[in-house]
């Protein structure tokens, strides 16, 4: 699985270069691609239908891309789009197409079998693509915010409790100052 993840990362970086993603973002793209593929194959090991692992992998990429966007000061989409491309169901789409070509031939005794397989592959391919698109958009959908700058992804609370309390205090202080300034005007 780690080996699959390794190649998944390279696939992501290849597409990032094709899309002209800035060089400072390439490492993040590699890590996201690695994680997406790793998660997908990890969950596939539990005999789950292929759609759900793709969706979970894509949502993971979507959520972590916000983090990457904060760190590198770039829109999250430029991390997320190259990173989900290794999850695209190329083989299913290919098999669907082969099946459709076979369906244009003569009706023989295993026509029903071909039909069933083609519909199965086609449904899988289209549902995976849909789940990838929704998975990438998940941070926007659940936080109901348009700009990634306003989104906060909380680190585990136990470790960062102190730091967060300090920032809270600082925020309160800033709010007071702001209020005073408004009253003056």
């Amino acid at each position, binding site marked *: 699985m780690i080996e699959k993840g390794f190649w998944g990362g390279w696939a992501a970086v290849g597409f990032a270069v094709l899309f*002209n993603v800035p060089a400072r973002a390439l490492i993040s793209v590699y890590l996201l691609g690695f994680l997406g593929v790793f998660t997908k194959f990890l969950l596939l090991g539990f005999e789950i239908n292929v759609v759900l692992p793709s969706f979970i992998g894509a949502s993971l990429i979507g959520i972590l891309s916000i983090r990457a966007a904060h760190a590198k000061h770039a829109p999250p989409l430029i991390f997320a789009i190259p990173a989900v491309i290794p999850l695209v169901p190329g*083989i299913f789409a290919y098999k669907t197409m082969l099946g459709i070509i076979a369906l244009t031939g003569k009706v023989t005794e295993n026509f029903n079998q071909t039909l069933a397989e083609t519909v199965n592959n086609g449904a899988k391919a289209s549902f995976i693509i849909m789940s990838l698109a929704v998975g990438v958009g998940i941070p926007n959908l659940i936080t109901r915010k348009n700009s990634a700058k306003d989104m906060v992804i909380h680190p585990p609370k136990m470790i960062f409790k102190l730091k967060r309390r300090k920032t809270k205090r600082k925020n309160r202080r800033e709010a007071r100052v702001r209020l005073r300034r408004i009253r003056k005007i």
Partner: protein
Amino acid sequence: MKILDVTLWRFSNQTLFMVKSSPTQEEISELGSVLLEIGSLLMSSGATTSRIRLTIDRIAASFGLSADMLVTHRALTLSLSDSHHNQLYNNLKRTSPHGVNFKLVSGISRMSWRIAENKWSIEDIKTDLSRLKGLPHYPRWIVLTFVSLAGASFCRLAGGDYIEMAVAFMATFIGLFTRQEALKKGFNPYLAVFFGAANASLISGFFTLFDFGINTEHAFATSVLFLIPGIPLINTFSDLFDGNILNGILRWIHGLIIAFMIALGLLVAIYLYQIN
């Protein structure tokens, strides 16, 4: 005491600031044309509709104006108005030819934040925009190598072995090269995709003609994956979910035509080599 014309809230970091005097008509039309150019650049380099709206709104707001726009695939309409709802600027601009460029998207996004924070003048925006437009792409050989590596990785992910990966690498390299050359010669972009797909699959399928004792099915299936319309298809859903349904459908059909062209290219190889 000087009378302040426009005061407005800036919500991004909740501080109050004032625009000293409202911009003159000349400045406004200059700003309008700059905003239209930014919008068209974003549209052609693969940004979603909501991102275009947000960026334009953000920049216009930092000049004390509100922007209303109609965003489509091929043209943008912008009208700027001030806080008294006076129409100040109205224009239409065609988008530049489409070519994905995330460096530009990221650069413009950073610029829009800097404009709001540092109160840039229109001249500053213009110079930064021309700098962003001049930023180089990756060198061609790097693009070719990395995308071919991605093709080989796809082959590995689909379950191919190392020989198949080498075949996929070669096929992707030549396919992408063909597509770039076709675009350079000024062919229709969809046709360029077809040429790329046909060439890549002809090369990866070549080994099925002779019995080398290797099975290159995985390489054949994955050698065309470098052409997949990932950006149109993912942007489709973000546009649809934002309610920009017309743009979403438009992008979807654009992606569908590309996918169809890939299938057509594969079909050529399948019929020539009689793969089933």
